[in-house]
């Protein structure tokens, strides 16, 4: 009989009972929808926020449909809810899109390691996102934005690209960021549109154009694989060291807690050891993505 | 058999029955019968039939157009070859092939679908319940043996 640890008796496979507080479309083509979930039970709420760190993800769970991982798009200070933006890509997300306020949903998390916020204290944050993967970066920005956290970090540069203005997420909030003096915000869309006042072009090109200084800075890149692939060399050209570049990986996963085995790259499990990795860490891993 | 046998009816959407019959099938089918409309009997995969059986159906009836009147020319005949042999295979492993019936129907056959279903139901009652093929039922923890 082996020694067993009994830190808590909860079953990590049991979804936390949640319900939908608010659901609203994020994009004009209705492919992106944001859900804010609140907890059925106060103790689950407390446990969640005790553990939560921006950059983490949750498994959303619908009995009969299964589970899928989604990055958390809200900061703890925003209230006792958890925000996700779900892109409609398959049958599971299609189903989630049909849910409305009041509907029941299950959630497991927070899972994985978030951004190493402690290590970043005192530094400038260059936040680079594209598409719906920007959601966790939104959570990060919201977190840093809070008056209590803001003094911990130096300048904040946000570069956010979407395919078109209609696909830009969190529009009203991001619009308000422009008023903020210690914020540098760059939005971009892929092709020109009438009335668009910001950058036009792909994210790597915008990064090149903005050319953030690597001095006392870390860069955080989250986006579709192709965007990440072309952004990393731009950052290296700008003299960001691999230890100061961070990204978040995605892979097929099931359990979310490092047991079911499928999301590994070499000996690292994305769900448990990630999803956030520094470029320096990634360079140590085999090409198994 | 205490309760009425559960019957799944696969109906080709092109071989509509006469209007009152179709009305009956769509609105008044007894609750022990379950209607599945398909674009052509040729579209019915044997997996559909097996699914119905494993889902608890006591009998499966497939209603298709007459051999030379298929909307897609010969979907019904190609279906027949497969469904016939599938029924033979099920029979081979102990599941009576009489529980799967193929009927050829035409628009003119007024009242025939009711008669066919009633006759089929009577035959299934006659056969009694079958234990010979597992249905999908909640599992106790299995796998702890080989």
């Amino acid at each position: 009989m082996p020694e067993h640890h009994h830190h808590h008796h909860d079953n990590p496979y049991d979804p936390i009972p949640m319900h939908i507080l608010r659901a609203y479309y994020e994009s004009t083509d209705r492919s992106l929808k944001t859900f804010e979930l609140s907890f059925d039970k106060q103790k689950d709420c407390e446990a969640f926020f005790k553990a939560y760190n921006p950059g983490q993800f949750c498994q959303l769970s619908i009995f009969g449909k299964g589970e899928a991982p989604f990055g958390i798009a809200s900061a703890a200070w925003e209230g006792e809810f958890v925000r996700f933006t779900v892109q409609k890509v398959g049958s599971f997300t299609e189903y989630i899109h049909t849910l409305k306020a009041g509907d029941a949903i299950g959630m497991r998390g927070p899972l994985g390691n978030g951004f190493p916020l402690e290590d970043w204290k005192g530094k400038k944050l260059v936040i680079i996102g594209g598409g719906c993967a920007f959601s966790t970066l939104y959570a990060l920005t919201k977190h840093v934005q809070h008056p209590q956290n803001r003094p911990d970090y130096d300048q904040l540069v946000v570069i956010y690209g979407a395919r078109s203005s209609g696909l830009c997420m969190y529009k009203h909030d991001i619009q308000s960021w422009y008023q903020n003096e210690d914020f540098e915000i760059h939005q971009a869309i892929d092709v020109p549109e009438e009335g668009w006042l910001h950058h036009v072009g792909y994210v790597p090109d915008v990064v090149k154009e903005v050319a953030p200084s690597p001095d006392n800075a870390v860069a955080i890149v989250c986006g579709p694989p192709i965007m990440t692939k072309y952004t990393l060399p731009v950052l290296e050209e700008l003299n960001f060291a691999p230890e100061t570049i961070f990204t978040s990986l995605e892979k097929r996963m099931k359990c979310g807690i490092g047991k079911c085995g499928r999301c590994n790259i070499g000996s690292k499990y994305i769900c448990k050891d990630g999803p956030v990795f520094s470029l320096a860490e990634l360079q140590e891993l085999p090409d198994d993505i | 058999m205490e309760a009425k046998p559960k019957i799944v009816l696969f109906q080709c959407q092109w071989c509509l029955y006469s209007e009152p019959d179709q009305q009956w099938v769509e609105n008044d089918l007894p609750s022990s019968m379950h209607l599945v409309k398909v674009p052509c009997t040729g579209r019915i995969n044997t997996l559909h039939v097996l699914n119905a059986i494993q889902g608890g159906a006591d009998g499966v009836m497939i209603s298709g157009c007459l051999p030379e009147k298929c909307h897609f020319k010969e979907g019904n005949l190609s279906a027949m070859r497969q469904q016939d042999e599938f029924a033979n295979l099920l029979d081979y492993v102990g599941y009576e092939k009489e529980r799967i019936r193929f009927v050829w129907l035409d628009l003119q056959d007024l009242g025939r679908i009711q008669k066919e279903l009633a006759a089929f139901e009577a035959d299934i009652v006659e056969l009694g319940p079958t234990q010979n093929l597992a249905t999908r039922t909640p599992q106790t923890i299995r796998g702890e043996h080989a």
Partner: protein
Amino acid sequence: MTYILDKKQLEKVLKKWSADYEVYAPQKAKQFSAFLPLGSSDLALDEPHNTRYPPKSLFLPQTEVMLRYNGRLNRLEDVKLEIKPRILFGIHPCDAQAAALLDTVFATEENSDPYWSNRRKETLLIGLGCDEPPQTCFCTTVGGGPFNTKGLDALLTEMEDAYFVEVLSDEAEKLFADLPKASKEQQKQIKEVQDSAAAKMAPAFETEGLKEKLDANFDSEFWAEISESCLGCGVCTFLCPTCFCFDIVDEVQRSERVRNWDTCMFRIYSLEASGHNPRPSRKERTRQRLSHKYSYWLDHAGEIGCTGCGRCVRYCPVGLDIRAMLRAANALEMEPANA
């Protein structure tokens, strides 16, 4: 403490334990022996090798109902996890070692797997050493041995008319305390039997530096060569006592969330919704299987994730032999990674 269990007393002892435990032991089934609840069939303790189906299934069943739910409410219903205490009698040391290895995956400090852990903490492993190890076995190569005690609560060594029982845990002590104790002389005999069994097993391959070879040759054509005949079935991994990968699916008609053994040898294991597959061919999948056992396990637990039980060798439908594959890996050059 070492006790003597007379073979003639065995059935009686097992029956006595049955009052307080569910006792499982290898028994003869129609085709081959398997771990079954005591009384299912005749005991099969005399077979030269392991049960074909690994006893990991007693901790991690191939199919397990994790949760039951009410689909309409989208809410959980309770599934009882507690089990009656168990004894696995006659488990071979390689399988016991595998259970201990898998504790590092499932019985973790954080996010401990309750299904695994509940069964493990309620189960005593009474091992039976192998005095005639078959040629497909290679436990001594990977740090085990035919009389290795890792993971066991007691180890039996078969002698002429009796089993000599080395008790290794307090719980097991209670099971055997009534039996006569072995003398010094008898204990020496046990040692001789055990040593001679281990001596019969020649090292199958070199493990020193193997991890480095595998890591360095991640992109090598070697993987395509050794996997060319691989069928891509799940025999090696499903029968493996240390393979633990699983899939989680909702069985809709049953309102159950179920986990099933899964395997890196299947194409769909790593296939993503986008259609992208990081391991598109048997080459990448074979690499994952071998690297996991002989490299990643070392990073995770400091040990090789293979106990040399020989099942993958015995039952591979195309005769692929992991020992030959690893010897071939050892013969590779140390090239820079990601070359």
